């Protein structure tokens, strides 16, 4: 057997698996979205049905707010952790990246422990501390799993910034906010765009967290789930999935073109 043949043979298991369980199912999903009463007009129908349109707008709004909040928090923490060495830094970093391996349902439970009826905030402010099942609770849940993802991307980029640049700016008399605006943010910009796109895509597609918290909130993954299981509206569930998949894939594609790698979606 020649080397060429062997190398080609090495790709065969992958090709069979990817074709059978990825390519064909995705094609089937797209076809299924057109098999309802409305045919391919179903995509038009999404934009003309108030319930779906509200859901789309609401999902995008929550995801955008989470992205902004996660960028603000994680950039601050990430810059602080890359530029300061102190005792406990490693522990702090571990705590901040710990939730990477938490499934979305566990993240939802974390928010219930903070803002549920038996939660921490309701114990401190009796009667006023229940927010877990509101849109604010959902926002916090998404923020919970976004912070580590954004932090890792920002820190990887921040470590590559030449400290001499910042020093030069300071020697020239630039105040802190000017250093941030003129040196750090431009140097971090590609990483920030990438991290933002990752956070947005993950929030858009988050099912586990929504499943635990959004019993009364219409966000896209929950609507897909109820269309499929409760209403048995397969075509609509498929169409909304296709739409969601295109949006999240597009965002992550954007992220990759700005920085080398992406961190697992999930949540």
């Amino acid at each position, binding site marked *: *057997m020649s*080397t060429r043949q*062997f*190398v080609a043979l*090495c*790709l065969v*298991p*992958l090709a069979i*698996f990817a074709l059978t369980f*990825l390519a064909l*199912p995705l094609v*089937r*999903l797209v076809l299924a979205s057109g098999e309802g009463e409305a045919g391919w007009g179903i995509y038009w129908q999404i934009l003309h049905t108030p319930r779906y349109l509200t859901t789309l707008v609401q999902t995008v709004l929550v995801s955008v707010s989470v992205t902004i909040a996660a960028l603000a*928090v994680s950039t*601050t*923490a990430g*810059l*602080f*952790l890359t530029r300061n060495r102190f005792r406990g830094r490693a522990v*702090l970093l571990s*705590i*901040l990246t*710990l939730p*990477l*391996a938490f*499934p*979305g*349902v*566990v993240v939802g*439970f*974390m928010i219930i*422990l*903070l803002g549920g009826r*038996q939660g*921490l905030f309701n114990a401190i402010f009796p009667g006023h501390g229940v927010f877990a099942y509101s849109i604010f609770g959902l926002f916090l849940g998404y*923020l919970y799993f976004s*912070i*580590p993802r954004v932090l890792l991307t920002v820190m990887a980029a921040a470590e590559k910034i030449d400290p001499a640049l910042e020093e030069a700016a300071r020697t020239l008399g630039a105040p*802190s906010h000017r250093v941030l605006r003129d040196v750090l943010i431009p140097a971090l910009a590609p990483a920030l765009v990438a991290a933002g796109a990752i956070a947005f*895509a993950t929030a858009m*597609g988050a*099912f*586990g967290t929504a*499943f*635990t918290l959004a019993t009364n909130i219409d966000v896209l*993954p929950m609507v*897909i789930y109820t269309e*499929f299981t409760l209403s048995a509206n397969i075509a609509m569930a*498929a169409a909304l*999935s*296709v739409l*969601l*998949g295109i949006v*999240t*894939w597009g965002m992550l*594609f954007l992220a990759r073109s700005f920085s080398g790698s*992406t961190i*697992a*979606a*999930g949540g």
Partner: protein
Amino acid sequence: MRIGKALQLAVTLLAAAFLLVPTIQSVLAGVTVNYFQGIRSGLTLEWIAVVWELYASSIFLSLGIALACLCVTLVIGVPAAYALARSPGRLSRAVEEFISLPLAIPGLALALALLQLYGSYKGFRMSPAFILVGHVLYTLPFMVRSVQSVLAAIDLRTLEEGAATLGAGPVRRFFDVVVPNALPGILAGALTVVTLSIGEFNLTWMLHTPFLKTLPVGLADSYASMRLEIASAYTLIFFVMIVPLLLAMQWASARAQRMSQ
């Protein structure tokens, strides 16, 4: 600058508290007699025992699926990563991009796609293999990338040519030259695969059957229908399993990355 630094520290600590406090709460609630009354009501392992009785099978199912998933991703992923590293170019990038789709498309959508195509094959649909397929879809890109990035950093061609002049055929070279050199990447990939498989929920929730509940599916079930102490005790068991895996995975990935630079 002083104030700026203090503010940065405050944000960092607040974020860490936000992530850590509920995990501590869940650990405490899992071993407290009555969470509503607080720690004063006493500590107990009773809830852990209840969880074990109710959900032990889901824990074992998850471990079994994670190991099976590891085997499949090794068999499919390592040779594929070798082939992709051996012939870099536009086609390889396209293949990599395609198999990475499950990271970009939400698990719910992927699960719907699988259900649409294979849902009517009852024997397959009702078996653990159906869940396994979902887990392999989701974890395979991590294995491929991890191995590929280690292999891309070494001069594979020269090493292989050396072995070839000594008379080693392609199969022998793969096992004696490629695999040993790829080990750090394989280790990092393997730990990632197991960690992600044990925690996978988004696909699994749609693919599971009432008789095949994985650990995270059981967690969702306990959050919805059990008292807070039991849900917490179950979460505590999950943490005990996942946190060491996560730390090992981060260590192995950092090591593999250092080697590929």
